[in-house]
């Protein structure tokens, strides 16, 4: 199954992991994403922005779940318009907003299903090690899990696909602080050790700044600004201006 992944993905390629160019997403007559452009070479890019600005729509467009126009290139290859399973087979994994675990599958089945291709370093046991809580609940159905457990499961499911691009839409929602910390560390080490690129949508600014190399800000469906994470972390005025975060914003 490895062959289905473009060779370019593994070599230290010159191609950017993800290049989005003038992307539009429409629901009926409303435009959720308008002419958004984004470049993720390697490492981690965080997208932040207020509610309803089009972050999820952007992710859904990348994974092929909603139709879009414009251009989305994955390691140089155009993937816009492909069906979701094709895109997934090219190495894109998704941790969706709202978790979307399968209600009638147990934890174990989730992981086994995702580990179908048996590639990469992750195994279900590895996931259980990362989230011990899941191991205790391994025979429970998807909707019998607590919110946080579902979130862990969604993350585990994505990691098992051994993606070359990992999309995470608010992965920390509902996770206890200690798990959030742990997740941050895992993501950082993943990004550092492997070729995997991460696109992270996040409301938790502290987490975003902590994990990402650079941060893009979305306003009304457009990416209005991309900057190094450190710069955003340091500049409270900027935070205030872009996201309406005031006084006690995040500092490093």
């Amino acid at each position, binding site marked *: 199954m490895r062959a289905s992944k473009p060779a370019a993905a593994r070599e230290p390629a010159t191609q950017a992991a993800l290049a989005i160019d003038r992307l539009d997403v429409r*629901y009926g007559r*409303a435009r959720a994403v308008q002419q958004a452009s984004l470049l993720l070479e390697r490492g981690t890019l965080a997208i*932040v*922005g*207020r*509610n*309803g*600005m089009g972050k*999820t729509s952007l992710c859904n467009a990348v994974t092929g779940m909603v139709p879009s126009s414009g251009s989305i290139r994955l390691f140089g290859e155009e993937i816009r318009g492909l069906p979701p399973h094709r895109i997934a087979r090219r190495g894109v994994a998704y941790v969706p*907003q*709202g*978790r979307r675990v399968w209600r009638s599958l147990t934890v174990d089945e989730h992981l086994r299903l995702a580990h179908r291709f048996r590639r990469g370093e992750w195994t279900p046991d*590895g996931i259980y*090690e*990362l989230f011990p*809580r899941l191991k*205790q*609940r391994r025979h*429970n159905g998807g909707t*019998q*899990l*607590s*919110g*946080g*457990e579902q*979130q*862990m499961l969604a993350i585990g499911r994505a990691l098992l696909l051994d993606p070359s691009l990992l999309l995470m839409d*608010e992965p920390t*929602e*509902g*996770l*206890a*602080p*200690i*798990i*959030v*910390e*742990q*997740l*941050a*560390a*895992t993501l950082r*080490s993943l990004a550092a050790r492997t070729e995997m690129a991460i696109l992270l949508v996040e*409301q*938790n*600014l502290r987490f975003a700044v*902590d994990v990402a190399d650079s941060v893009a800000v979305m306003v009304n469906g457009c990416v209005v600004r991309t900057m190094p994470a450190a710069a955003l972390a340091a500049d409270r005025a900027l*935070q205030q201006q872009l*996201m*309406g*975060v*005031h006084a*006690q*914003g995040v500092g490093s």
Partner: protein
Amino acid sequence: MPVTGIQAGRSGERAGVSPDMPARGAGAAATPLALVLETLSVGFGGLQVLDGVSMTIRPAERHAVFGPNGAGKTTLFNLIGGDLMPGGGRILFFDMDVTRLPPHARVRLGMRRTYQSSMLFPELSVLENLLIAVRGVRPGRFGLGRIRPGDVDVAAAETLLRNVRLTDVAAQTVATLSHGQQRQLEIGMALAGTPRLILLDEPAAGLSAAERRDLGELLTALPRSTAFLLIEHDLEIALQVADRVSVMHGGRVMRQGTPDEIMNDAEVQAIYLGGGSKEAGGHAR
């Protein structure tokens, strides 16, 4: 400060205090306690999810519940709200035993809740969602009179709309809202009427930083007559609004105390809060 009533059930921790003592103590004659939980327990299959949880909430108390994922917080809310029936124990709401009442009866007594995953009416507009929430606790639910703009109920719904900052999308169907907007609406629906107790299950989850700030203000600004129980992993918000904090772990109440006490508790830090520094979870894999 005396122990207001957080006892781990059978475990024997703080064994000196019997579960219902504080509820029925000397003060009972004056104002009844908002909520008394007596050794609640519930299990699914072989798993004991709640194991003798007792707790009391005074009227107007703002109480935060912390706990690691899967500790049983949402399950506790489901018991209080009536979505689940307990395997054992009692629930008193302003001195009234509501343990076996269906959810709608509890709501009419002044209890309101939000859900961790939004539970909305996707085909109706935002305003209609709120209108339903407003009407739910007023008589005339079977009313066949036409609802017109300008009715008191509509006005009340519009006020809620402003409070949760959804005026712009008032006429939109809920199915077309973004996740965060739905979370805002979820909160709005719990604020309808004049509840005596609100159960908030991770209200800040999915909200952006700016909306979180608004939420904090909204909660602080609630009339003091309203008590609430708040599950929240966003410590900033929780600490901003809470008077007292309980920490649940493995289906039991492990600690309770003032926010400061809890934040400095070593055990709580170990199981829930983490070190707060980047190195804390570094060896995860």
